[in-house]
């Protein structure tokens, strides 16, 4: 998995440059993992066992209520970290599910290995802090979109961030992510195309 590790190295370096020894340790804790389409990797109620590095495919974290209604919270695609991060870091039961939406490949690591390295290398902990700050910024931006954008603006913004997503992911998940009705979603596609 040399290829996967060089992707991870670049991803980590962009968040916070690590000294050589820390980077070497950091790269040593990951194992390759593959999953097919629509495989449930984390089930709500369980503690997230892994942090993932997404090398290929699209996944989502979603909430499911007791009437089986779903809300898609976040999509992940390469190169990025994935999994239910709050549950992984706090080691508390996840409120969310994590599943693949297309065939996917990852690197993943356990919380034990991850925590050991955060304690060993201050630079790794700094990287995690900076990474999480970026996650917060992303979530705030998404909250603004959800609360103040029209459906069409949300749709356009999604397409701008990830132009190929219409050909990759079933539209119902995109509609769920944007918080709009599936019927309205097909109308939006026609409108925006013209």
């Amino acid at each position, binding site marked *: 998995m040399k290829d996967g590790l060089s992707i991870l190295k670049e991803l980590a370096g962009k968040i916070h440059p690590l000294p050589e020894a820390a980077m070497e340790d950091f790269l040593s804790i990951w194992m390759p993992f593959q999953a*097919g*389409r*629509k495989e449930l990797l984390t089930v709500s109620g369980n503690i997230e066992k892994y942090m993932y590095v997404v090398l290929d495919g699209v996944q989502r974290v979603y909430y499911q209520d007791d009437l089986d209604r779903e809300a898609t919270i976040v999509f992940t695609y390469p190169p990025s970290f994935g999994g239910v991060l709050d549950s992984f870091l706090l080691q508390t039961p996840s409120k969310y599910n994590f599943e693949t939406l297309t*065939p996917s490949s990852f690197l993943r690591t356990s919380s034990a290995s991850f925590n050991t390295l955060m304690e060993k290398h201050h630079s790794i902990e700094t990287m995690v802090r900076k990474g999480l700050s970026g996650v917060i910024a992303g979530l705030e931006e998404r909250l603004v979109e959800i609360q103040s954008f029209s459906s069409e603006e949300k749709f356009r913004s999604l397409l701008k961030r990830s132009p190929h997503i*219409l*050909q990759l*992911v079933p*539209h*119902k998940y995109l509609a769920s992510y944007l918080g709009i009705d*599936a019927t309205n979603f097909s109308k939006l596609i026609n409108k925006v195309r013209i």
Partner: protein
Amino acid sequence: MTLISSRALMNYLEQTTERHIQKAIEDYQNMDKARLLKPAKNGGWSIAQCLDHLNGYGHYYYPLMQQKMDTYREAGETYTGTWLGNYFVKMMDPDTGKRKMKAFKNHLPAPDLDPHEVVSEFIRQQEQLLNLIRIARHRDLNRIKIPISLTKYIKLNLGDTLRFIVAHNERHMRQAELAGNVINVINVKNVVE
């Protein structure tokens, strides 16, 4: 009788279904209504009609398979294609059953379809089928019996049923592909107008 390793069979069925679902996500869900509803050049079914026909089968078979697999949970290593199962699969498989078939009355597509709803339901069902195939890897493919959609008096084992369904999907996905490929006069006229 043919003896097949369950694992090899399930790999084949999963790959084929993955291809079908990819086609629907990449192309069909992004096509405009007119193109999805356009009859094939030979006057045959449109893309939407092909998928709706498959949805009719899925609607019958998928919940039934789920229910049987929830009830009978023993695993099996190999699978034996039965004479009747092989006959049905051979007839359905577009590579071996070349003869044109007429759809049974209760499996004819509806005349007024919402094409995007049909595609969306097709994708939902294919995701469901992928999951069923994965569960079937841990079930006895010979022991579980599923009545066919036309009559409850004929039953196929789970392995035969899955092979039949995927062959049937392949048949109509090819038909849909042909219906979608043809750019005929009507389409050009729409663009001009």
